């Protein structure tokens, strides 16, 4: 049994190392000044870069966080802390579980019919919303689980001091759970950062530099998809480099949260 566990862990680590290592080897040569500053050149011309896609990805991730994080955290607090609403909570929890298990393309279709059609254009806004919707249930459920780990005795101690319940939640329970909630957010963020699926119907793609939220926008996953599917060696190099940058973008927030949000050893 122990051997099996070690074996499974070892294989997982090896796979992770292989994937990251291979992307690094293939991607590093493509990283250059023009990769970060340039936009695509006509086919056949060397050089060019992914600046438009990097900026686009940041905008899409930012919009998604703007939607997904507050909404998800508030829903998580509702689920964990509002005991008077337990019936509704059960329903919400079930819905969130179903949503987080659903293919992310459904979020894309939902935003397509509700936003894209009425705006009559694909847009960064629609893409951010779609990604945000994918984030909500992940953030909500994780927030709930982490809040539940904060011992009831701590809440009681605070309530016994004559603090109102919402004060206890905001000033005592949330800070204690901050690290766990933060880690959950970054995992949800990493999940959506690399997902092109909800973007097909929403943000689509853009060959040019654009920061306009009402216009289609490029993103790293979409560009990687487009470049790998094309038969040009220069594009493949760009795609590998893009993948490497994408990993860095997903990984950095995780690292930052782990470094800057302290964990608390909760007594008993």
């Amino acid at each position: 049994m122990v051997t099996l566990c070690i074996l499974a862990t070892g294989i997982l680590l090896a796979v992770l190392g292989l994937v990251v290592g291979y992307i690094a080897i293939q991607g590093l040569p493509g990283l250059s000044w023009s990769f970060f500053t340039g936009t695509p050149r006509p086919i056949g011309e060397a050089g060019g870069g992914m600046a438009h896609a990097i900026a686009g990805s940041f905008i899409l991730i930012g919009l998604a966080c703007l939607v997904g994080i507050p909404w998800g955290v508030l829903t998580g607090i509702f689920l964990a802390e509002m005991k008077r609403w337990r019936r509704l909570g059960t329903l919400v929890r079930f819905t969130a579980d179903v949503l987080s298990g659903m293919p992310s393309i459904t979020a894309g279709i939902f935003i397509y019919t509700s936003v894209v059609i009425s705006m009559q254009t694909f847009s960064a806004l629609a893409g951010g919303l779609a990604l945000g919707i994918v984030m909500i249930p992940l953030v909500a459920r994780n927030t709930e689980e982490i809040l539940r780990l904060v011992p009831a005795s701590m809440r009681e101690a605070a309530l016994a001091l004559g603090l109102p319940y919402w004060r206890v939640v905001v000033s005592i329970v949330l800070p204690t759970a901050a690290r766990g909630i933060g880690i959950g957010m970054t995992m949800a963020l990493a999940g959506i950062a690399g997902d092109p699926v909800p973007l097909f119907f929403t943000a689509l793609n853009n060959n040019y530099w654009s920061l306009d939220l009402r216009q289609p926008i490029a993103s790293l996953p979409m560009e990687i998809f487009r470049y790998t599917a094309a038969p040009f060696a220069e594009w493949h190099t760009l795609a590998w480099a893009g993948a490497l940058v994408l990993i860095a973008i997903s990984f950095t927030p995780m690292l930052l949260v782990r470094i800057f949000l302290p964990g608390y050893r909760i007594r008993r």
Partner: protein
Amino acid sequence: MAGIQVEALHAWYGRDLILKQVDLVFPGKAITAVIGPSGCGKSTLLRCLNRMHELVPGARVAGRVVLNETDIYHYGVNPVEIRRRVGMVFQNPNIFPTMTIFQNVGVGLALAGRQRYRHRQLETRVVKSLQQVGLWEEVKDRLHRTATGLSAGQLQRLCIARTLAVEPEVLLMDEPCSALDPIAAIRIEELMRELKASYTIILVTHNMQQAARVADFTAFISRGELIEYGSTPEVFLRPRDLRTERYITGTGG
């Protein structure tokens, strides 16, 4: 002497009746010990006195609890206000791990909301509370660091200081020494004796020697009923009820 009067108190968890018809007066500026076998309802009684009982879903209370002429269960009385007047110390020293020692002691004032405390005022109260529990000398150099590294006894005194900082009238102590070593426990007992000059103290304990050592009055509860109440020597030396005698002598509840 004004303390807490309990009149015809009943308490339920869901459909289970935990306390039956408890009538009792906790005298002011004295220590009253509440003893009884596990699950007899003594902690529930304590939690009815600062309206913590009702926080558990399905919990219910009937009867009157009068604190200095306020019926704390009267319609329109804010339980949050009551909890500021009736402080509580728990079995495990449950400090807030995200906060510094200073913040831990001042939290009840700093986050109260209604009144804004100036930093100077807050500091005065924190220092005074720490001095009251005899912790000032031990922590004065590390006020603005977290409480990690303090011993369990020190943490428990920190929790008491935190409760005192809100300036309550009554101090409820739910087995405050059960998680402590004997020396730390004696220290808390000394502290209780000092504090009874200014507070009404109600102590739930499993330790009968402790009750005998510190309490002026003792109440014995069994199966949700108040069996006996009187001055501590009376209850321990000349119990009127057979059940009390059995419990105290350890020959069955």
